[in-house]
């Protein structure tokens, strides 16, 4: 019922983890298509053979592409190799909580015309060093109904692929991913897909979007964190390409995209300024409370200071 396309290239440790996240799903009617995008077949097969022992099923298919193609072409090849009612693009470095598929499929039952169901996302900052993954921080990835409309998405992508389960018939209606795009193919596809029934959002955070910190071994980096310049360049190119396409509001799609992008940037800058101001006010308040506490409890303060300056002694 659900096809999961997992693109991978030379990241066996992360691939093993990603496959485990699929195998741990409480929803069991899935097929996993791993697209080895020109990487060493032996490495992928080694991980998959171990994984197949866990699943005990033949629901894992591997496509070894002879040479590396773009991310979107890899997705398309995986999709064309599968049949299903729904599909998801599960990158080899991301993961789901066990109830992601069950929740998304259940949500589709009451929103059968929706193009996709998305869940809340946790952003996991992690370092990949010496063949091991070291989680650094988990934080809420800002996602809400308001960020999933065409009018908001046109300004820039608002969610990672791991958050979404798509209705497969969307592919028939709007086409596959644009293979010519080196990055941001998911954004371009989302803009077409959202107009075919809209996106439904479930706020529970069931998807984990993993990003590697700059200290990580380079091969394990995200396409976004490693290639920010490329993303900016491709975005500009897309906006230029859209200049000739007209929106129902009478603006060109390219202008509309730039306009929304500017509005979002301004709103985010304003919000950031408010957060900084609030943090500053809180910090000032904390200092005042500390001074007040020191005045109220002078002995306790002296003891704390003494503890901090006490010379070294043995355990």
């Amino acid at each position, binding site marked *: 019922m659900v096809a999961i396309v997992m693109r991978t290239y030379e990241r*066996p*440790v992360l691939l*093993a*983890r990603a496959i*485990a*996240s699929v*195998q*741990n799903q409480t929803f069991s009617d899935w097929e996993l298509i791993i697209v080895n995008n020109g990487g060493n077949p032996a490495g992928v097969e*080694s*991980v998959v053979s*171990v*994984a197949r*022992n*866990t699943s*005990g*099923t033949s629901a894992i298919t591997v496509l070894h592409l002879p040479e590396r193609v773009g991310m979107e072409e890899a997705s398309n090849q995986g999709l064309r190799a599968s049949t299903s009612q729904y599909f998801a693009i599960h990158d080899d470095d991301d*993961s789901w*909580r*066990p109830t992601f598929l069950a929740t998304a499929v259940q949500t589709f039952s009451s929103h059968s015309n929706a193009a996709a169901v998305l869940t809340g996302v946790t952003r*996991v900052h992690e370092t990949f060093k010496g*063949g*091991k*993954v*070291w*989680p*650094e*921080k*988990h934080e809420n990835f800002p996602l809400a109904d308001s960020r999933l409309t065409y009018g908001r998405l046109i300004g820039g992508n608002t969610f990672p692929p791991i958050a979404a389960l798509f209705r497969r018939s969307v592919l028939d209606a709007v086409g596959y991913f644009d293979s010519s795009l080196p990055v941001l193919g998911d954004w371009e596809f989302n803009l077409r897909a959202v107009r075919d029934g809209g996106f439904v959002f*479930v*706020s*529970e*955070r069931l998807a*984990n979007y993993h990003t590697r910190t700059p200290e990580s071994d380079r091969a394990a980096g995200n396409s976004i964190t490693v290639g920010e310049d490329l993303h900016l360049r491709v975005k500009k190119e897309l906006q230029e390409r859209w200049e000739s396409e007209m929106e129902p509001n009478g603006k060109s799609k390219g202008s509309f995209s730039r306009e929304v992008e500017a509005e979002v940037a301004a709103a985010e800058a304003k919000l950031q300024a408010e957060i900084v101001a609030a943090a500053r006010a809180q910090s000032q308040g904390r200092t005042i409370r500390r001074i007040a506490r020191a005045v109220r409890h002078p002995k306790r303060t002296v003891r704390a200071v003494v*503890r*901090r300056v*006490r*010379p*070294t*002694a*043995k*355990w």
Partner: protein
Amino acid sequence: MSTAQVLNAHSGITVLTVDFFDTMVTRTVAQPTHVFAVMEQLLVQKHGSRWAGVAYERVQAEHRARVAAAHTDALRDITIEEIAVELAVAMGLSATEQSTVISEEKSTEISLAKAVPAAAAIIAEAQTRGIRVLIVSDNYMPASHLVSMARAAGYSWVTPEHVIVSCEHGGFKHNGVLWKKVLEVAGVPAAQILHIGDDQEADNVQPSKLGIATHIDTRMRLSHRDMHNTSPDVLPLSRIEATQRDSMYESEWNVAHALGDGLVGMVVAAQVADVMNVVKQREVAGIHFAARDGWLAHQAWNKLRESGVALPLASYTAFSRSVIWRASLTELTPDNVGRFIGEDEVLTIARLERRVGCALSSLYRPDEEIDAQSARAVLLENDKQVVAASQQLRQRVLGYFELQGLLKPGHHIVVDLGWTGSTIADMADLITEATNGASTLEARLTGMYWDATPNRMRVSMHGYAMTEFESLDNNLRLLGVIKLMEALVTAPHGSVVDFADASQNFQPIFVETAPELFAYEKLMGRVGEAAIASALALVQGTHASGVTAKDITPTALWAAILQVGQSPRRDEVEALSIVRHVTSIDHEGDGTPLVASPPSSPKSFPQGQLPDLYNTLIHGHWLQGSLRSCSYGDDTRWIADEIGHRWPFMKSQWVSSQLA
């Protein structure tokens, strides 16, 4: 003291006042704030994930409401409406949602209320003797609500006139204000009043100041833990602990039973239920419970089979990190020789020979003590003998595995507590090589942490309560409780250090150490017995708490591990202080204590050494148990506080992973 004795000891009384919560009425959960966890569960069920996290926010909202009230009147108590306002601000609730949450909290309280037997008996006896009964409570709920709760618990005689509650009278029991109101309502001299309650300050010190006689009974508090941990995931253990509190009410608190029936029983039930699910879904060539972490589950598995449950035969298979690693050794180099000898170890040649399983030639006397560096040099000089001994061990290990059925072609399940899975991954390599890939392993682990990631490439692994997908905080919390889990989930025998030869059927040779035997005899044996009984009841759906294996979801088990491991009660820390871990490769020596002793000179202990101390505690001991032990001493409390301050995720308070 019996009911009659309590009343006879105060023969002149005409009024009996009774504290309400945990004296007269309790709940079917282990601690008061778990009412909010039940409330959250119900709100999410009825109205969706909008209400996820409301229990945690509810606790915080009450705190903020109390702080705000204290600014204007430090003596008065707050009301449920004031708490709801704070909650509304935090969660952005509408007026309707505010009413919903108040109404749900009240109805949840009523549904969970039950009478405390001792108080019910005293009240009944007092009423028989014609003594008037009043209820006195420090609480934010109105008297009318306490009446509803009392009636739900079986006190049908209670009316609002019987209830004196702090939020309606401008002061608490614990600051003395409410006691003046009690005297006024009672209308008799203080000497004619007996009060029964569970709080030293509120129910004893303050009323005694006015001449009111008191009787304190704290038995209903024995199940309390940290009040901030309120995710609905805590409820299975909470319900079990509430049942323990009630069943041990008339006897002495039995910490071994509490641990075994609670956390350990849940772990064992989860291990068994997980394997039952696997064999329902697919065929496996063999099921193998690992020594020693799988001993309890293996016992439970066999008892289920004996009781007629259709389950396949499962083996109890001995292996250990040291044996598997030695059996895998093909070359001894300066890089890997360290795995035979710890950095700080002082050894003799005789002990070293036992450790590597062969005679060693050296210039040292057999009983002469040598440091780790010298010992490693001796091994490298004897590398051929060491490798040959390892290869012989490999044959014995494989001979044993064959008898255990592990080399039978097909896919085998190995049940273990887990953590990094490296030992099972090494074992899988041995077996794959010996069978040319005909036999494969899958590890069903209770918990894994981040080191497990590369091992996933070597062996199929499934972490039940915890995986490396979780936050770093949870990974570290797991690290801090690993030693505790290994101590609790154990067997009546020591670790395997070798295997006999073919003439003795490759029998595993377990090493028995005095510290482990002592702990097993004093405590762990009883924990294990209770755990097996509890696990059977949980799997069969007959546990007195009503909890079943289905309730022990991965997050519920994780919450149970953290409730005990991260928020231990004092009785647990004290009981577990006798446990020592013998972790050397040959399992000789006295080992290290599970609960580390506080520094001998805490007043002069330097702040600069706290990181080293933290590191030692988290890797070598039960971190939170050791910190709790520190927190009990006036001189050492600052160390626990400071570590909690510097590494806040290691405070005893934790929340579910969604909020972490």
